[in-house]
């Protein structure tokens, strides 16, 4: 017994030494990649890293999950200050401006040009690329996992309630909600206080500004204005619906967030990311008919493109030259059409390049059952060319601003606070955040 333990330890040691020796023999350049995805999606990133390591012999990428978008940003900052930053890091949409002004990165275009890769930058969907590009359209980071908000509904419940139309407009959503209620459904539409679909996506598709200066693209002195746009009416509409118990608040504090409320068929309609498409398909009991649509608009609104969500990959400054060669090789590798298709298949994320999308469409990817409907996310993102209001959101401290908005929504829907007063307050407090950000980066210009 004891002997066998010693034997296995020795065997392990031997294996470890041989394993340790082989990379040294091959002289691979190692570099690090930090990302924020967790759970199932983290496994898929690990698969991508493994595929890259097996595809060539010169570089070895070490991928580490930081278990969350915000922690990835925090850890990247801490590591950069300690000069231990990874070569590549994944930063979410709301952290884009923080990175841009940090001066702590190598611009995407420069990296690829320096290392001899020719990338067709126009191949990226403009709705996606614009979110991460400078005001002149140069990409600083690589769009990686991209999503947008969509509208999910339970087609079975619709049928039972005798609803014979698709919820394309909010008027139709209201009508559907009334019919569902009449048919005995307790929660026709579930919603939470996430400003991403309610404020950001709503404002984009209705071509409403969130802030002045083209949502911040034209200067750090932008000011929030969403307390004076259609968004206010939209919140009032939600409030009215909530008072009539047609729209129901579902948060984890109440016991169930919107996603489980939909997959448990408690609620029949929700707005959430296309990235949840896979989860919803997997979680809903077999045989339940459901569908996904672009977010509804108000009647007689000219629909605009929606905003991209998700994250992009940034290459950090201050690493040895050899690592950049590896980083460029990796970024080039994951952008190949085959990898793009693989990534979109195993996750719910949408392809970020036109050729990737076309290849998948031609291959019949979107015709088959589990993936059907995901093409509507692309349709939503590319619905129109981007306008000043739909290019993206380039505001400092945006995570904090999101929080101010969701706190206001919480006060409105849970504590009956006045809609206009609460949104005014969110704008005022958000503007304080913007002014502080502007002062912190005094003298810096958006490029």
């Amino acid at each position, binding site marked *: 017994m004891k002997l066998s333990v010693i034997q296995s330890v020795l065997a392990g040691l031997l294996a470890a030494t041989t394993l340790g020796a082989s990379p040294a023999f091959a002289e691979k350049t190692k570099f690090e990649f930090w990302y924020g995805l967790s759970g199932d999606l983290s496994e898929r990133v690990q698969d991508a890293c493994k595929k890259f390591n097996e595809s060539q012999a010169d570089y070895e990428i070490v991928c580490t999950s930081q278990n969350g978008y915000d922690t990835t940003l925090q850890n990247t900052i801490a590591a950069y200050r300690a000069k231990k930053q990874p070569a590549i890091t994944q930063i979410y949409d709301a952290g884009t401006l923080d990175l841009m002004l940090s001066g702590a990165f190598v611009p995407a275009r420069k990296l690829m040009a320096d290392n001899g890769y020719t990338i067709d930058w126009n191949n990226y969907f403009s709705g996606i690329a614009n979110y991460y590009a400078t005001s002149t359209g140069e990409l600083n980071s690589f769009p990686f996992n991209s999503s947008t908000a969509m509208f999910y509904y339970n087609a079975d419940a619709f049928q039972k309630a005798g609803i014979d139309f698709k919820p394309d407009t909010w008027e139709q959503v209201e009508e559907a909600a009334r019919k569902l209620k009449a048919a005995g459904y307790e929660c026709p539409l579930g919603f939470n206080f996430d400003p991403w679909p309610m404020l950001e996506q709503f404002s984009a598709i209705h071509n409403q500004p969130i802030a002045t200066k083209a949502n911040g693209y034209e200067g750090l002195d932008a000011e929030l204005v969403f307390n004076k746009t259609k968004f206010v009416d939209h919140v009032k509409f939600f409030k009215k619906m909530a008072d009539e118990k047609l729209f129901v608040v579902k948060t984890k504090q*109440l016991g169930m967030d919107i996603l489980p409320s939909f997959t448990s068929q408690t609620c029949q309609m929700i707005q959430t990311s296309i990235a949840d498409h896979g989860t919803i398909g997997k979680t809903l009991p077999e045989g339940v008919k459901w569908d996904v649509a672009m977010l509804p608009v108000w009647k007689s609104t000219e629909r605009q493109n929606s905003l991209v969500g998700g994250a992009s990959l940034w290459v950090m400054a201050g690493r040895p030259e050899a690592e950049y060669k590896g980083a460029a090789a990796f970024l080039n590798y994951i952008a190949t059409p085959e990898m793009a298709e693989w990534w979109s298949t195993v996750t719910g994320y949408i392809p970020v390049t036109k050729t990737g999308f076309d290849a998948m469409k031609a291959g019949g990817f979107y015709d088959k059952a589990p993936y059907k409907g995901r093409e509507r996310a692309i349709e939503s993102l590319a619905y129109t060319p981007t306008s000043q209001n739909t290019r993206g959101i380039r505001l400092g401290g945006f995570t904090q601003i999101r*929080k101010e908005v969701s706190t206001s929504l919480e006060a409105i829907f849970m*504590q009956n*606070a006045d809609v206009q007063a609460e949104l005014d307050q969110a704008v005022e407090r958000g503007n*304080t955040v913007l002014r502080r950000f502007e002062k912190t980066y005094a003298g810096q210009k958006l490029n």
Partner: protein
Amino acid sequence: MDKRAVFKSWWLPILFALPQIALILLFFYWPAVAVMRWAFTLEPPFGGAAEFVGWANFQDVFADPFYWNSVGVSLIFAFCGTASTIVVGLVLALAVDRQLPGSGLFRFLYILPYAIAGPAAGMAFRFILSPERGLMASVNAVFPDFWNPAKYGSHALVLVIVIFAWKWAGYTFIFLLAGLQSVPRALTEAAAMDGAGPIRRAVDIQIPMLAPTLFFLLVIMMTEGFVGADTFGIVHHTTGGGPNHGTEVMVFRIVDEAFKGLNYSGASAQSIVLIGLIMVFTFIQFRFIEKRVHYK
């Protein structure tokens, strides 16, 4: 009689203390100095030139009504949390100290919650006490909104205090039980023979004799309630500071501003105010309460 061993050399004790001193310097004084520096500048997250702004960060902090809200919430949390942990711990300790059958088992059970991490407890209680799906769901079905921490700030505050007390009562319990066991048995036995019941004995003999332990727990629990890791962990995993700032304790606000808002300077200023507040509290406790706790 007074034969004390005195070290002649001064460097030897310092040498022995060096590891500890190095740790304190590294993990306490150095960050504290960095926080001081950040509190008076506008620190860009990725580093670089930070502009000196004097007291502006503090002015911003004090001008924010929600900051004062968080001070109030923290005070309520620390006072109620401390009071309830000590009262619960005391009652349990008095009961176990009577050494009735099963005391050993209960002593073990009462300490258990202390072994559970605050965030884990918070997560569990979020489900157990969730208004629509938890234990109170049936009560809420009859009396709507009887218990709704997602709606009422006061309910949410009760929720986080209950979790805090649930966890930390085990800690006060073990200290108070140890204290009770050092109360001379002769005193309680004499009182019992004179006809004093368990409650009278507790009020007149045991609790006064416990005064030093109670004072120690008061200081520890107040500090824990203000700045303890559990305070943040519990709030973060149950209410997230809501509803509408209802449970936004000072530590939660600081972490949130620093790491979510990347406002290192504002958060540093708040930290300094918090450190000051703790110092004032501890001073008051030692200056005015400690004097009364010693018995001869």
